[in-house]
């Protein structure tokens, strides 16, 4: 199989790595860069556990090949905090118990960070009323976070945590 060299900037660190062309961004980050915080729940883009930020936008990294991310800026869960200081989303997940097993949590948090940005950029969602600016209420948060499954059923805590982080 083919191999190719790609350049990825992950959490601010530039890596030039030789990858199997079949490697997903998720597997590249996990297996080659030893950043195992991003999780594989389905490897089919159906669960959101592998969500990362690529050039600031959320992607399911299991569906993106490493070569397609060549030259991009990638932020994983390991890069969300400001060194030892948790991001407000992370802190809210801890304080409001926005998780149980924790396996979907890295993807939830990356997704939530992107939701806050999308919201502040004025992006509507499927439940945003026409001609009205969206308020980031529970209905909006539920809709915007529905690409991230949580089998423990921690959605109530997740919605509360995203809501609190939005106020921070």
């Amino acid at each position: 199989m083919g191999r190719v060299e790609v350049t990825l900037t992950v959490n601010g660190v530039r890596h030039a790595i030789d990858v199997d062309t079949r490697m997903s961004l998720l597997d590249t980050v996990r297996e080659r860069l030893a950043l195992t915080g991003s999780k594989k729940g389905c490897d089919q883009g159906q669960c959101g556990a592998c969500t990362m930020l690529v050039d600031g936008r959320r992607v399911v990294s299991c569906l993106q090949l490493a070569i397609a991310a060549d030259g991009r800026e990638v932020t994983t869960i390991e890069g969300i905090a400001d060194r030892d200081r948790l991001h407000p989303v992370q802190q809210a997940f801890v304080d409001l118990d926005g998780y149980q097993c924790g396996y979907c949590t890295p993807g939830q948090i990356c997704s939530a960070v992107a939701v806050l940005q999308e919201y502040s950029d004025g992006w509507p969602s499927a439940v945003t009323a026409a001609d009205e600016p969206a308020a980031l209420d529970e209905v909006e948060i539920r809709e915007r976070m529905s690409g991230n499954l949580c089998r423990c059923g921690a959605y109530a805590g997740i919605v509360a945590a995203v809501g609190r982080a939005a106020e921070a």
Partner: protein
Amino acid sequence: MTAVGSGRTRLEGHDKVTGAARYAGDVPADGLLHGWPVLATIPRGRITGIDTSAVQAMPGVVAVLHHGNSPRLVEGAGWTDADPNLQLLQDDRIPYAGWPVALVVAETFEQARAAAMALPVKYHAQPWDVTFSAAHPGLYTPDEVNLHQPSETAHGDLDAGLSASAVVLDRTYTTPEEHHNAMEPHAAIAQWVGGRLEVVDSNQGSYAVAQDLAKLFALDLSQVRVRSEHVGGGFGSKATTRPPAVLAAMAATVLCRPVRVVLTRRHMFSLVGYRPPTSQRIRLGAAPDGRLLAYEHLTATQTATTFEYVEPAGVVGKVMYAADALRIGHRVVRLDVPIPKWMRGPGEAPGAFALESAMDELAEKCGIDPIDLRIRNEPAVAPGSGRPFTSRNVVACYLEGAKRFGWYERDPRPGIRREGRWWLGTGMGAATYPGETAPATAAATAEIDGTVTIRITAADIGTGARTALAQIAADALSLPVEWIRMRIADSDFGPAILAGHSFGTASWGLAVDEACKALRARTTGTPTEPITVQVNTAELIQAMGRPERHAFGAQFAEVAVDVLSGEVRVRRLLGVYAIGRVVNPLTARSQLVGGMVWGLSMALHEEAVRDPAFGGHLNANLAGYHYAANADVPDIEVGWVDDPDLANPTGIKGAGEIGIVGVAAAIANAVWHATGIRHRNLPITPARVLATPPEGPRA
């Protein structure tokens, strides 16, 4: 203020939100190899050929293990019963579609996957039967149901009771095949280190997994160590040893290198268990005032040809209601399907859907409020055994729930509330789950810095066990929680019950409490050398016997049914529980809410569909097998009532399973209240709603 009873954020919270928490599939190793199971594509027959030469030259391929070359495993391994799912790659028989026929091992994940896809396997297929039906001619009465409980329970004269009844209800309720689908796919890494087989595995009980591996590979238990520090959900699917640990250990033994085996989502649909479909016929006979004269609960379900697991749906009837005559029975048919296993609330979850739906129908027929009907049939003793309950506070749950939900303001008539195209209704159901205790070993070490280290082979699969046990230890030692160091999920810490059956916190908590009290008796203050005390609660629990100790609850639901699209939206859920002492209100609430989300998901979404033509699933992925996503879940409110019960001295009953029980019935009953249509087959999909539209004008 004591630690127990106050909300504490999780000890591992920081690790979980920063990606530092390491799950089994995250563990690195030098020279790591990747194993990929190749699964049978036919449901019954034999392997006639595996052409390993076709893939051996592919890049990175190190080995292809199959029944012709794999190590021989000792038979008999399994938790309480020998588990045929652990006898992997031992012979050429195919018992079900999705059974492992080979393990491809390669240097990288991509190489293993490519070779597994390319491996030619030839089969001789034999006729198969994968289709469950309550009329299946192969149904028989098993001697026992899950966990060696009797299949049949009866007292009184059922026929006499039914014929003396002014009101008789005879209904059949069905639940489909459901899958756990924990977020973390099952994973294991195995390697030999200094003469020991070291395994990091995704499981709910590392000690039992170590026992199984020792047995399978003819090793002394001291030669095996299994750990599972972080587990990405279990719900029963990781309760006992699953194939990845065995396959990884097998390959690591043959190849003398570390091997990781991670299941794909599709693999999980055949290899880790599932809740089997049920068809439950319920007959209730009542006096005009609703008092039960007769109650019959007959369950038909499926199991595999290789193992008789019988979903014990009738067990709810042994606990819930008094009836002059009672008959509970189970029948099962062996099909060419994977082995069903425990799934959250095994028995109670499907059983309560049927019983609590039937009670709602009876209330309608008798013209009695559903809560009043239940209170009228409160038993003085456990109906199944005739023995007293250690505590029974279900009525308090009904009344507290009714008050908080606004139940008594409800107009009982169905199909009269409209909000545009939405029809609105409310419903309720009762919940019960055993609050049992099982033996565990715990060690407490007084360290020279004044802290205390607790060691116990507990598993925190998201329950909050690690934190709850630290709280229990802190109180037993009169120390701040911050001074307790928790070490869990390592088989070297000794035997302990697995995280299942809502056993965990009550059982491990008792052992931790005993260990800390014993340590306190040995030493006070900070020692000059570490002092360790280890206890095992087996004798203590033996002396406690097996009393009728149960948690209870009341579930309330408000739904809106769109009769144009058939969509059912749950607008509100409330659960009020009697679960003994609540150690950590923050995490206990999350567990109960999570269980209720499962109940909602069971009511409306979940169904694994098997194709009789090829014997496998049509929807073995998370798009086809939908479970509740964030936008499916409404406001959920949880409360609990006082429920003192020191039959376990910790007072804990467990919160892991009761949250799911009764929710599907509460929702189905609310759908009836909204539309006037009874849905007795789960899930209540738009197609089913549209197939039986409510009468009256459409919006």
